[in-house]
């Protein structure tokens, strides 16, 4: 054809064989973004959707107005949560490679996001997580053994072998049953928050989605409903740069940032350094307070990087430079919090090594305990009868007949 139109397909800055290039990720100085009052008019903080709120500077010091009121003990606890998640990931990834389960998804590089947000929440609040927020469970003290039994689909699996590994559910820990269909739960979180408001409760909901899945219609439905009803919900977008092999520019399109999606809905939007435990906590706490004070929803974009593969079925070297994660300008969340704690004299390299040893031992002990109840292909299994339970509150006649057909 001789017309002038040309089709446009966005491309990432670098592909395998190239050098990592994050020159398009503009990183403001730590402490440089102001902290408005929670009842600010969203119109007055539109710039926050295009900046990055950061607390930890390059020397490991906490600086600026977003420095949260967390003591050293709470920060050490946060570090331990992240280290536990990382050790858990390492063991479960290995277990998957050993054939003890079918599937696993790691959090490497994103540990601060879920671990810090959990600590900012209160009992009774409800998360609607994706598959990469197991830190919400670990930071809330959910037993590692129960998580592993779910991953192994063994006889102690709280979900009775029905769900894909890592699709946990725990109402008691404010962790909604994970759906493998992306973004469906973003609008459900808004509905949960609406119900809390209808009921005159004081609980809030937290919605979670990744950068790629913001493209789903459910995301837009959630923003419309959250905006219309001023629902007490925090709308979290974890931008880890990659949706399997698809770079975030495919979902983002021409918009400057994912946070900016909130602006057209009149929803205040903040962008935060997702690898900075203090900044994540502080921004989450701001958004949670807004929700709890009936001021409505907040959209938060956590700028982070998926340092590992998408899942145990994925090989990132096929679509991005091998060394890309080393070039990520916001560093490693575990190292950054560790360096901060050392800088303020609350931690040391020796204590860190010791903690690593303790945590690894704790995770291995949990794994041994879980494996007593079986792994996917060996040992104790859920009953075939469990297929037929919980389809309805009471099995109707046709399910009773089918259950009899397989003799359970």
């Amino acid at each position, binding site marked *: 054809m001789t017309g002038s139109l040309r089709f446009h397909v966005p491309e990432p800055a670098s592909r395998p064989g190239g050098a990592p290039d994050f020159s398009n990720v503009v990183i403001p100085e730590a402490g440089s973004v102001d902290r408005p009052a929670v009842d600010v008019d969203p119109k007055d903080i539109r710039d926050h959707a295009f900046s990055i709120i950061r607390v930890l500077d390059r020397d490991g010091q906490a600086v600026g107005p977003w420095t949260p009121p967390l003591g050293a003990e709470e920060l050490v606890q946060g570090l331990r949560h992240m280290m536990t998640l990382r050790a858990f990931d390492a063991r479960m990834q290995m277990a998957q490679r050993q054939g003890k389960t079918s599937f696993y998804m790691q959090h490497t590089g994103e540990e601060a996001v879920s671990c810090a947000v959990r600590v900012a929440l209160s009992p009774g609040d*409800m998360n*609607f997580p994706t598959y990469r927020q197991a830190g919400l469970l670990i930071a809330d003290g959910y037993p590692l053994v129960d998580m592993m039994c779910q991953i192994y689909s063994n006889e102690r699996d*709280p*979900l*009775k072998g*029905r*769900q894909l590994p890592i*699709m946990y*559910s*725990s*109402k008691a820990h404010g962790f*909604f*049953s994970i*759906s493998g*269909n992306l973004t*469906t*739960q*973003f*609008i*459900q*979180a*808004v*509905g*949960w*928050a*609406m*119900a*809390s*408001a*209808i*009921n005159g409760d004081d609980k809030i*909901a937290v919605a979670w989605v990744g950068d790629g899945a913001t493209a789903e*219609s*459910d995301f837009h*439905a*959630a923003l*419309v*409903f959250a905006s*219309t009803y001023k629902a007490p919900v925090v709308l979290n977008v974890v931008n880890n740069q990659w949706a399997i092999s698809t770079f975030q520019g495919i979902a983002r399109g021409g918009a400057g940032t994912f946070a900016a999606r909130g602006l057209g809905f009149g929803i205040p939007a903040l962008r935060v350094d997702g690898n900075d435990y203090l900044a994540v906590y502080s921004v989450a706490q701001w958004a949670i307070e807004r929700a709890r004070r009936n001021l409505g929803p907040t959209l938060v974009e956590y700028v982070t990087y998926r340092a590992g593969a998408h899942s145990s079925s994925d090989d990132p070297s096929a679509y991005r430079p091998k060394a890309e994660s080393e070039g990520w300008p916001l560093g490693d969340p575990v190292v950054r919090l560790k360096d901060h704690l050392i800088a303020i004299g609350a931690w040391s390299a020796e204590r860190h090594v010791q903690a690593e040893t303790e945590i690894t031992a704790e995770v291995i002990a949990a794994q041994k305990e879980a494996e007593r109840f079986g792994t996917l292909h060996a040992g104790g299994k859920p009953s075939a009868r469990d297929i037929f339970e*919980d*389809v*309805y*509150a009471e099995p*109707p*006649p*046709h399910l009773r007949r089918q259950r009899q057909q397989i003799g359970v």
Partner: protein
Amino acid sequence: MIEAIRDAMDVAMGRDEKVVVFGEDVGFFGGVFRCTQGLQQKYGASRCFDTPINELGIVGAAIGMAAYGLRPCVEIQFADYMYPGYDQIVSEAARLRHRSAGDFTCPMVIRMPTGGGIFGGETHSQSPEALFTHVAGLMTVVPSNPYDAKGLLISAIESPDPIIFLEPKRLYNGPFDGHHDRPITPWSKHDLGETPEGHYTIPLGQAAVRREGSAVTVITYGSMVYVALAAAEETGVDAEVIDLRTLVPLDLDTIVASVKKTGRCLVLHEATLTSGFGAEIAALVQENCFFNLEAPIVRVAGWDTPYPHAQEWAYYPGPARVGAALRELMETR
């Protein structure tokens, strides 16, 4: 029937403050079919309210509310508009109890006007019940008269499971025998048009025999109940007409007892034929009544085409088609 449906929601909202009603135009205005008229005035805007035009949002928000502990009863303005919310219904509402091992549940009702005969064209006439009956975890209800509509809707709202409640819109104002050129009988002149005041329920999963007969069993539901009755009267075929009322769970016992008695079976629905719910009924009758059958099972249904506008009455499986099928079925030896 509109009043009966409204009354059911009114009764349920009055008894349980966890019942909330919402959807497009359902709040201040009371719904395009007036099924929620007066509920916002009576119970306030936090219990009955308008939503953005977003069926995905309506269903998705309702799931979150149900998981919280409310009992949402939402309206999809036409069943034809349901598709944007279908993923939420199939992947989420239907499976929440199972995938969370009962940790979270989804007690909710999704009401939808269904079916044609109102010159609604392809986007206001569809009967998508088979898209729900195929999904494990859902119950699907189709009332055929005001008395049932009220009792079944109260049961649905009180149920711990997600329920699809399909309201044949051609029946909103009276039973419809499929003779579009004849005057309509209002519900006020029909036995089942009377609804008792206050609370009563009709259990989900129980069919009703609308006409007893010995020659053939007609298995149907919704607006087609009246077409079947008209065809039986007009042909003189002594048909037993079963109104299923609930498609899932299905009252197989009533079906089997009747077909074993009559030895012949006609399955009738307005929805398209191929992979329609009638195929399921025919298979079950074959499995359970094969040695009692004196003739092959016959299906009469909507044609496998989009629902037309001008040619509505050529599409609608009216008494002429059903009558011809009944005669043919009786002649088969």
